[in-house]
């Protein structure tokens, strides 16, 4: 793929995501207010107009930008400055491979609703995610503060541990879809799954009325355990509650970004929210069918509407529908994360590690074994 | 694409840098990192030569890349053990200075 095109698309994504992140802070505020039975962010106003508190993100950004950028004494100035950028950058460029829509052809031209579509798309996300560790480590180290150092240590240990589970928990999905390419994965999910098809594995025949009982062929139905583990590991990578041991407000004040202020603090803050979007995007792409509309695949839409409205119009409509579907799933997943974040109490640090090494890791390996056995049974 | 000679040249330079690092630095951690650098230089040479003789689509010749995978595996194992050694050394000597590890000297 031409490099210029990738750069262009990345720029567009950057704009979208950077705009989205502040809005998510608003969502979070509202969500927490809702769950805690209060009204929540509604004070910021321009001439008395509050717009449901939507002005708060703007106020936040303004305030952060005008704050003084403090570098503590004895800190490594360069690394202190670089750390927030390194934390935020991977989160943003991870969007490069997430498909916002499918592949559509308008006559001779083909449109791909994804910035880059390499064969190894999912691995790319893992690789980028593993680099994200450095932001936290550098910040913790460069601040010349013991709390920060502890936070950085915890962050590195936690992220490196959960990466293992993260990788292993989706191996089952690789096996089911037989690809690592995210667009291919979504296309494989743009169909239906016969719920009673397993009868044929044991030599029976499926009655016709049962053959109509179908589910969307989403990854979550193939790999429910994988979904749970993947979501958990992703959330732990993000270091937000309940996995916020590296920040640990009650123990480490603010952990690795304790000594940050102004826009650099804002970058850390933003990167967390961007990662929430990344998680939502990846999870909905892999497990929730991405842009695929349940029970209504791309060919059906284009064929059905195209028959009386014209091919071009139908494809255009399809693009919009798919994009909307994806955004809907994205928002649902973001909301789910908010819900979890405000529902569950924090884990203690040892609990975080125990969950990873003694809970999720063996489970994910068992999941691979079971998936392999079942696939051997079903596909022979 | 650049000629493979340049890739190999880069690999040689990195290897020699790593070698000098391993030979001159007294900080055990840096020595370990220098060794990693040497391994990486070798990996680069493997990848470069594999690029030169890639085989065909039916019979791919990916021995170089497979060897790189193995080198990465070995490197990971080596780092795990090496860092274990460093930790126990810190515990016993309170230093990562290589020159202080001379108990077996005559």
């Amino acid at each position: 793929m031409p490099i210029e095109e990738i750069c262009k698309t990345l720029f567009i994504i950057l704009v979208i995501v950077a705009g989205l992140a502040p809005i998510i802070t608003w969502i979070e505020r509202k969500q927490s207010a809702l769950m805690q039975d209060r009204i929540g962010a509604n004070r910021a106003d321009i001439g008395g107009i509050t717009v449901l508190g939507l002005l708060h993100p703007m106020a936040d950004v303004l305030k952060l930008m005008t704050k003084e950028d403090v570098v503590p004494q004895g800190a490594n100035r360069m690394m202190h400055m670089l750390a927030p950028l390194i934390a935020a950058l991977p989160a943003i460029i991870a969007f490069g491979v997430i498909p916002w829509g499918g592949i559509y052809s308008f006559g001779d031209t083909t449109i791909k609703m994804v910035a880059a579509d390499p064969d190894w798309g999912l691995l790319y996300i893992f690789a980028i995610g593993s680099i994200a560790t450095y932001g936290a480590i550098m910040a913790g180290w460069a601040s010349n503060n013991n709390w920060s150092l502890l936070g950085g240590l915890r962050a590195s240990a936690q992220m490196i541990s959960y990466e293992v589970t993260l990788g292993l928990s989706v191996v089952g999905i690789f096996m089911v879809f037989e690809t690592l390419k995210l667009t291919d994965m979504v296309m494989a999910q743009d169909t239906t799954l016969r719920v009673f098809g397993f009868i044929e594995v044991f030599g029976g025949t499926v009655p016709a009325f049962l053959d109509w009982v179908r589910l969307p062929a989403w990854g979550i139905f193939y790999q429910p355990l994988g979904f749970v583990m993947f979501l958990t590991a992703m959330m732990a990578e993000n270091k937000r509650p309940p996995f916020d041991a590296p920040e640990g407000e009650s123990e480490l004040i603010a952990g690795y970004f304790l000594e940050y202020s102004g826009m650099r603090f804002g970058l850390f803050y933003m990167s967390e929210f961007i990662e929430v979007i990344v998680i939502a995007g990846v999870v909905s792409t892999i497990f929730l069918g991405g842009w695929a509309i349940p029970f209504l695949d791309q060919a059906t839409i284009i064929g059905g509407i195209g028959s009386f409205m014209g091919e071009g119009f139908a494809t255009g409509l399809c693009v919009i529908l798919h994009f909307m579907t994806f955004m809907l799933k994205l928002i649902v997943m973001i909301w789910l994360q908010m819900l979890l974040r405000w529902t569950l109490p924090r884990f203690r640090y040892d609990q975080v590690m125990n969950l990873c090494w003694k809970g999720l890791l063996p489970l994910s390996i068992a999941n691979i074994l079971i998936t392999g056995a079942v696939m051997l049974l079903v596909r022979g | 694409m650049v000629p493979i000679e340049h890739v190999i040249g880069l690999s040689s330079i990195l290897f020699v840098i790593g070698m000098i690092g391993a030979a001159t630095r007294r900080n055990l951690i840096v020595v370990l990192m220098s060794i990693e650098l040497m391994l990486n230089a070798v990996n680069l040479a493997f990848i470069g030569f594999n690029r030169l003789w890639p085989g065909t689509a039916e019979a791919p010749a990916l021995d170089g890349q497979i060897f790189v995978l193995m080198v990465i595996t070995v490197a990971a194992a080596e780092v795990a053990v090496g860092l274990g050694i460093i930790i126990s050394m810190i515990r016993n000597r309170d230093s990562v200075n290589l020159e202080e590890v001379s108990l077996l000297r005559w």
Partner: protein
Amino acid sequence: MEVSAILFYIFAVMAVVSALGMVLNVRNTVAASLSLVVTMIALAAIYVLLEAYLIAVIQIMVYAGAIVVLFLFVIMLLNLREDDFAPGRQWLVKFGAGLLGVFVLIQLLKLVGPGLPEVPVVPEGYGGYRQLGILLYTDYVLLVEMASLLLLSAIVGALILAKRNID
């Protein structure tokens, strides 16, 4: 010069500079290991240019994402801010090492020399996970088994070494 060649030289310079930065930085071990990360990432980029995609991704995941993080973790765990060792006969060592390095470098470069064939066009699927995976689990399956055994023994060894009280 085409784009890929320009990129190659950019990344090559980046790799060499950061490698030198790692070796020559005697004050700050953390900075040295971060330089190593830059070298790793530059190498990964070069792998992409050499169309070894899977290796590039694994390079980042394993080297940058795991190995150097482990280095950093240990450095931070042991809180090694600076290594201010007592001065020794370092000039002799450095002089000797430099001499040896130059000698080896000249030998290596002489060894490669010019005369390698033209870089061919890669076949379809080169460097992808599919071909590599099939090879790994057919022709090289013994190697995979050996690697798994090696990793297991490394885990056990690291545990034993790092354990505080062995009993």
